[in-house]
């Protein structure tokens, strides 16, 4: 598909929706339709898929600007040709996944605790707000404090504040080498080990745990990771890049399970959780995937007690997808929504049943 600036047509469609009092569901590659509340009002789709193309890529400035509909795969290939990466390892959950959809869902891959989240790598955006105004916030430079940080507000907003047209992100050098160490450990031992490593200066860029084995990913210069690998011991995992990619994209056999998939977000130092079902731990224990038929309140209350939250990531049927710990924030969020999208045009019922 050719690069195209489709701003005018998208703006026209939003204006029409305003005039006709219609609501719109934003779609990029439609790879993350499963994410968010599922009982959404039926409404017309507005697609960013044709609004695509890398607009500005400056490897020496660590900058990439692309239209929202640009496929992640295209961006990854372009970066790889220049030995660069999106360090937050955005999951796609499908070949059609776009940059806009990834940022709107606010998803980050296994490197998140070590390299930062999607929002940490965002520099600026262009978007259409609910009045069909094309707005630009942030920019293409690393440091920018002019105006409120409206760009980061869009990350994880699930398209409810506006339709993202373009995003500028910070890109980083690809590590020269990486190596993954495996240790046979109980869950409790493995969590204790990563706790101790957390306060040392080490080139760790991934940690996950499943079924009696922890996986530690080291990245950097070959000599350096070899030295650290000797220090940490353990077996080396072959073809490890594939495994981390499979984890990122939920293609490990673990995820092949009909039960509802929960994402538990927990403070570091949280001990093993006694919940029915199967678990896979990522992010040094701060993100735990749980396959379970347990009741939502049981799972969510447990996480809240520990200072975290639980979201129903995929499957299941109830409406308690996102767990707001501080109920007092809900009216504030609702007013923020109204400030961007006063007529409630965009993605109704996706982030909250209230709007």
């Amino acid at each position, binding site marked *: 598909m050719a690069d195209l600036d489709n701003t005018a047509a998208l703006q026209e469609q939003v204006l029409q929706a305003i005039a006709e009092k219609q609501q719109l569901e934003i779609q990029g590659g439609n790879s993350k339709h499963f994410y968010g509340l599922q009982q959404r009002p039926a409404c017309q789709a507005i697609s960013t898929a044709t609004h695509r193309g890398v607009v500005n890529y400056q490897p020496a400035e660590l900058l990439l600007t692309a239209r929202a509909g640009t496929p992640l795969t295209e961006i990854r290939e372009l970066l790889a040709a220049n030995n660069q990466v999106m360090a937050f390892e955005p999951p796609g959950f499908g070949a059609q996944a776009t940059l806009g959809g990834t940022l709107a869902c606010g998803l980050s891959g296994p490197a998140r605790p070590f390299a930062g989240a999607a929002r940490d790598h965002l520099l600026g955006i262009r978007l259409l707000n609910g009045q069909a105004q094309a*707005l630009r916030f942030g920019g293409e430079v690393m440091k920018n404090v002019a105006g409120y940080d409206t760009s980061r507000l869009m990350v994880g907003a699930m398209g409810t504040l506006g339709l993202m047209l373009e995003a500028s992100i910070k890109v980083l*050098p690809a590590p020269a080498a990486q190596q993954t160490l495996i240790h046979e450990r109980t869950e409790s031992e493995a969590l204790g080990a990563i706790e101790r490593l957390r306060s040392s200066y080490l080139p760790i860029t991934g940690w996950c745990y499943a079924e009696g084995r922890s996986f530690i990913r080291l990245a950097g210069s070959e*000599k350096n990771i070899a030295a650290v690998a000797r220090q940490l011991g353990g077996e080396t995992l072959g073809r490890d890049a594939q495994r981390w990619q499979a984890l990122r994209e939920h293609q490990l056999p673990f995820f092949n399970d009909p039960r509802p998939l929960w994402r538990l977000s927990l*403070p570091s130092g949280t001990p093993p959780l006694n919940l029915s079902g199967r678990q896979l731990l990522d992010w040094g224990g701060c993100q735990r995937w749980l396959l379970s038929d347990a009741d939502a309140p049981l799972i969510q209350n447990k996480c809240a007690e520990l200072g975290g939250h639980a979201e129903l990531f995929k499957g299941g049927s109830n409406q308690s997808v996102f767990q707001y710990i501080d109920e007092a924030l809900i009216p504030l969020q609702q007013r923020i929504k109204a400030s961007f999208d006063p007529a409630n045009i965009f993605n109704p019922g996706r982030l909250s049943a209230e709007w």
Partner: protein
Amino acid sequence: MSLDNHVEPMLPALRRQLIDALALILPPHCLLTEDNQLAPYESDGLAVYRRRPAVVTLPETVQQLQAVVRTCRDLSVPVVARGAGTGLSGGALPRPDGLTLGLGKFNKILQIDADNTAAVVQPGVRNLAISEAAAPHGLYYAPDPSSQIACSIGGNVAENAGGVHCLKYGLTVHNVIQVKIVTIDGELLTLGSHALDTPGYDLLALMHGSEGLLAVIVEVTVKLLPAPPVAKVLLAAFDDVQKAGDTVAAIIAAGIIPAGLEMMDKAAIVAAEAFAKCGYPTDSAALFLCELDGSEQEVDEQMAAVIALVEAGGASSHRVAADEAERAKLWKGRKSAFPAVGRLSPDYYCMDGTIPRSQLAHVLAKMGELSQEYGLQVANVFHAGDGNLHPLILFDADVPGELAKTEEMGGKILELCVDVGGTITGEHGVGMEKINQMCVQFGPDEIQQFHALKAAFDPHGLLNPGKAIPTLQRCAEFGALHVHRGQVPHPDLERF
């Protein structure tokens, strides 16, 4: 500098009513109302802007602070929150019709959680004090604005403060995991958490750089990082600014992210050397300091690569600090650049634009032209890694008209930054100082969106009003509204 937006003082009757209400909330030593008590609060780090607040309060508990804010809401009194008062853009400039809410008594480190590499602190805690408290655990707090010895963490969040290590370790927004805020209704809310994300809109990020316009920050949880075992610094000097800029680009293109990468132009080099005797080659057109940190192995490998690039880039000289003492000496020159320049001239004015690094030579040349045109000398220090430029304009406030000239030239420099694809402020904030240039960087629809977002937090506009986001009327008067297809936006708005 001339403050062109005059604000009438608070009416005496309202002031009496406010003081009476506050006296019921605060012990006497937390309520300042006499002229001699108010005078120290007249300005922040941008001391050329001065106004006396109607009242200053220094609450000691969050409950007191909530009650103060509620009182202000009930009486429609503007609230200006203030940390250490080191800000450089007039963000904490008081209002004669308003209350200054000092957070200086919230100065306790509540918890250093070494196991989970986090620290919970009150907003008045000094930036450097966090790293000092974490040091026994081998940890530190990464953002290091040059005022770190004095500036407070609450102010750092409000301004999204940076420092010399931003490119590798991020800004304040990348290093804070939770804040507690008090809204204009006196409600205490928690944004973020000790987990790595929270559901809903990212209000934690939004607080960063919001300059006290959305809420008052009353507690901050920061991420601590393990201190790198080794740090080495290289000095490279060039006879041409373009060569220095190109070499910086080559280092980053080679996949090296230095911990610090600081460039200075000739005027700054000469001033720093005269002041700090740090061994800078004063015959160079530009120099940079490149600091690498990590394991010994990593640093040695990367330093070898950097030296090769510096040589290929045509450096006139270069050297790696042999030991910790020399490293400290090389940094001393850079860190004392501001006071060093201050010795050359009765006054100086520090700017804060960010530009795409590729535009550096062009921007420096243009600034040279402006310097000629206005007859004012400029010295430049540059966070070269992230494109954040600090031109220092030298002037004499006692020469009639020079102040206004400096301000005008500063404005032109910021507009130049926007023209080349950059921004009017990288880390100092908009505050009062750059409010007109906001009209250059943003169009009316964007400015309206900012106002709508503020109204979601503060519907009556009582939190730090008049700062950070200009009114459209102000932009019309400044004459910088974007004119689109010959149409003035919002023609229905009253102008002048």
